[in-house]
C-alpha cells in the first residue's frame, strides 16, 4: 500500500479521500489555491502544498503544478477526486509518465468513455444496449420513415447542430412523421442555420439509473448495485437514492452484468459508474463516468463497502479479494446535495459567508462537507458545499430520516437547495417512487403556506429587536444602513447575510 498520496482536489471530496486514507495509515498531501489557504482539506491533510493562483486554471487544473507538488512532497500516487482533472486522459498519462501511480482507470479507458460517439460505438460492439437510433443524419422524410421502423416508435427527431434538448420533436406513429420532420427541419435552420436532423428512440418518462463498478488490475470486477438519480435539473442531480425503487432483482442483476461488460470492454480498472436511461422496463447505456461520483456514499451505506478504500487498494495493485456473491443490499440510502443556490429563484447561484452552521446528527445521518463557520462561498468553484446522507431500514424510513435531518440543518449565509429537496421528499409521487428526470423541473419550489404567517411574525419581531438594539447603540452605528433606506445602504448587510436575491430583480 502507498505510504503517501496527493489529492488533486478540494472541498468535500478531498476530505472524503483524506478520511479513508488516514484510517488506512496513509499520509495525505493536499494542494490548494490562494483562496483555499484556510480550507478544511489543507487542515486535515498531513502535508499542504500551495499551488498559488485564484482561478482553477491557475491551481487545481494546472497539471504540471499538481505533478510537481506530488514529486516535491514524495507522494507515490495521485487521487483526482471528481471534477477538475479527474476525467482528463492527458493528465492521467502525465501522472503515469512521471512515475506516479494514478488512482483512476487507465488513460485509454478515460479517453474512450469521454467521447460520446466513440464510447457508444464501443458499447454497441460489447453488446451493451444503447438508445436505438442513427449516428448519421437522415436525408429526407422518406428515409426518416424507413429508418424509424428499425428504431421503433416513439421517435425523437433532433437537430444535428442542436443540443441541450432544444428543438426536439416527438413522433409517436409513422403518420405524424411528415409534418414533424418539416417543422423540425425548419426550426433547425432557423435556430442553428443547419437543417440536418437525426433520429433516436424517444424515451418516455426516463429515469436516470447508474451502476457502481470496481475493477482491480488482475481482471476481476464487481458491481455494487444501482443508484437512482432521476431528481435533477439541467442535469444537476439534487436527490439520489440506492437502491432504485423501480428495479427488481432480475433487472438489477442484468444491469450489473451489463455494467461490468461495459467496463471490461475498455479494460477498466478502479471505480467507475455506468449510467443508464431507464424507460418502460428497458435500460440503455448513456455514458460511463470514469471516476468516483459525488453520490458514491449511498452505495457505501447500503453495501458497507468503503469505495475510497477499494480505490486505493486496487490502485496499489491489490486484488479485490471478493466476488459478486459477497455483496448484498442492506436497507436504503438517500443523499441530498447541499448547493449554494436559491431554489425559489430559479436555482440561481448564491454567495456569501457561512455563519450559524447547524449540522444534523443522530442515528444513520452522515454529513460529508468542507463547510466551516467563516467560509466564503464565492463563484470560483462548484456551488456544491456538501452532501447529507441517511440510511434507513427501508425506503420509507430513509425518506422520513432525511426530512428530519434537513429540518435539523441550517446553513446561514447563503441560500441552499435544501428546501427544494424537502419538497421533493414530501411529495406524494416521490414517496410512491413515481418519478422521472423531469420531475424536479416540473415542481414550483415554495415554502409551505402554513408557516408563512409565523415567519412574518418572527421577522417583524426580529426587526423590532434590531431597532431596539440600534436605538441603544452609538449614534454612528445606528445611522449606517438604517435611517436612509436605499439599496446601497443595505449593501453591507446583504453581503453579510449572503442574500442577493432581492437586488436581482432590482429596478
Amino acid at each position: 500500500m502507498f505510504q503517501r498520496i496527493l489529492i488533486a482536489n478540494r472541498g468535500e471530496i478531498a476530505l472524503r479521500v483524506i478520511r479513508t486514507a488516514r484510517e488506512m495509515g496513509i499520509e495525505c498531501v493536499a494542494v490548494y489555491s490562494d483562496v483555499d489557504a484556510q480550507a478544511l482539506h489543507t487542515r486535515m491533510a498531513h502535508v499542504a502544498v500551495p499551488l498559488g493562483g485564484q482561478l482553477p486554471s491557475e491551481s487545481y487544473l494546472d497539471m504540471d503544478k499538481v505533478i510537481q507538488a506530488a514529486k516535491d512532497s514524495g507522494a507515490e500516487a495521485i487521487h483526482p477526486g471528481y471534477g477538475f482533472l479527474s476525467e482528463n486522459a492527458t493528465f492521467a498519462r502525465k501522472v503515469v509518465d512521471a512515475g506516479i501511480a494514478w488512482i483512476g482507470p487507465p488513460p485509454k479507458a478515460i479517453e474512450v468513455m469521454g467521447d460520446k460517439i466513440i464510447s457508444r460505438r464501443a458499447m454497441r460492439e460489447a453488446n451493451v444496449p444503447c438508445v436505438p437510433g442513427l449516428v448519421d443524419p437522415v436525408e429526407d422524410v422518406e428515409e426518416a420513415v424507413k429508418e424509424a421502423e428499425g428504431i421503433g416508435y416513439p421517435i425523437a427527431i433532433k437537430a444535428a447542430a442542436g443540443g441541450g434538448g432544444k428543438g426536439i420533436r416527438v413522433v409517436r406513429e409513422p403518420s405524424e412523421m411528415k409534418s414533424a420532420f418539416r417543422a423540425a427541419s425548419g426550426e433547425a435552420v432557423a435556430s442553428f442555420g443547419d437543417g440536418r436532423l437525426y433520429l433516436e428512440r424517444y424515451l418516455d418518462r426516463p429515469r436516470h439509473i447508474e451502476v457502481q463498478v470496481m475493477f482491480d488490475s488482475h481482471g476481476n470486477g464487481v458491481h455494487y448495485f444501482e443508484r437512482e438519480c432521476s431528481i435533477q435539473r439541467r442535469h444537476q442531480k439534487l436527490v439520489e437514492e440506492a437502491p432504485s425503487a423501480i428495479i427488481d432483482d432480475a433487472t438489477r442483476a442484468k444491469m450489473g452484468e451489463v455494467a461490468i461488460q461495459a467496463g471490461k470492454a475498455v479494460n477498466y480498472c478502479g471505480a467507475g459508474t455506468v449510467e443508464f436511461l431507464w424507460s418502460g422496463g428497458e435500460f440503455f447505456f448513456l455514458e460511463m463516468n470514469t471516476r468516483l461520483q459525488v453520490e458514491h456514499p449511498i452505495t457505501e451505506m447500503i453495501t458497507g463497502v468503503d469505495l475510497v478504500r477499494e480505490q486505493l487498494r486496487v490502485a496499489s495493485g491489490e486484488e479485490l479479494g471478493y466476488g459478486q456473491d459477497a455483496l448484498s443490499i442492506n436497507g436504503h440510502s438517500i443523499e441530498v446535495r447541499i448547493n449554494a443556490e436559491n431554489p425559489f429563484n430559479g436555482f440561481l447561484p448564491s454567495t456569501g459567508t457561512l455563519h450559524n452552521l447547524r449540522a444534523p446528527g443522530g442515528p444513520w445521518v452522515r454529513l460529508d462537507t468542507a463547510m466551516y463557520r467563516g467560509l466564503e462561498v464565492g463563484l470560483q468553484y462548484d456551488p456544491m458545499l456538501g452532501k447529507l446522507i441517511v440510511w434507513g431500514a427501508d425506503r420509507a424510513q430513509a425518506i422520513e430520516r432525511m426530512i428530519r435531518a434537513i429540518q435539523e440543518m441550517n446553513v446561514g449565509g447563503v441560500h441552499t437547495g435544501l428546501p427544494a429537496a424537502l419538497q421533493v421528499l414530501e411529495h406524494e409521487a416521490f414517496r410512491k417512487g413515481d418519478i422521472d428526470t423531469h420531475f424536479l423541473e416540473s415542481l414550483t419550489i415554495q415554502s409551505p403556506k402554513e408557516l408563512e404567517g409565523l415567519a412574518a411574525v418572527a421577522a417583524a419581531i426580529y426587526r423590532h429587536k434590531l431597532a431596539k438594539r440600534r436605538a441603544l447603540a452609538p449614534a454612528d452605528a445606528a445611522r449606517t444602513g438604517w435611517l436612509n433606506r436605499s439599496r446601497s445602504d443595505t449593501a453591507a448587510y446583504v453581503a453579510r447575510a449572503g442574500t442577493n436575491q432581492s437586488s436581482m430583480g432590482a429596478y
Partner: protein
Amino acid sequence: MKTFVQIGETAHEVEVKERLGELQVTLDGDPCEVQYHEADTHGQIILMHGGKSYAMSIEGTPHEIAITVAGYRYDCELEDERERAANLAAKAANKGGGLLKAVMPGVVVELLVKEGEEVTEGQPLLILEAMKMQNEIPASGDGIVKTIHATAGTAVAAGDKLIALTAKEG
C-alpha cells in the same frame, strides 16, 4: 409599529408592541400570541405559538430577513409605514422602469433584447453565465429597453449596470 412583510406573492401586516418586556403582536389585524426567545446570539430563536414551539434561524437586515424553520426558508422583505409609502411612490413614478444590475460576477453570454424594444414582465433580457450555469435574467416589469450597458461575451462584476428600462407610456 406596523411592519409590512412581503413573502413571495403575499404581503403580511404585523404589528409589534412591547409593554414591560411583554410582546403584543397582531398578524393581519388579528392578535397573535407568541413568545420569542433568543436561543443564542447567532440568530437561533424559539418562537412559541399555539402551544407549540418553533426553532428558527434568522439572518438579515432590517429590510431583508430570511427565516429558516423546519428546513424551509422564508425570504421576507420588510417595510414600515413610512418606508412603504416612500417605496410605493418611487415605484409608481417609475413603473416598469429601472436599472438591471449584475447581482454576481459572471459573463454576459447573450443579449436577448435590443434598445427601444418593448418588453413584458418576466421576459428574459439576457443570459448571464455564473458558476458554470447559464441564467436567464428577466425583466422586472413591463417597459421599454432604454440603454444596454452590457456587451455579449464580456465579463461583468457584481453591481455592474446591465440594462436600463423606462416605463411604457399609457
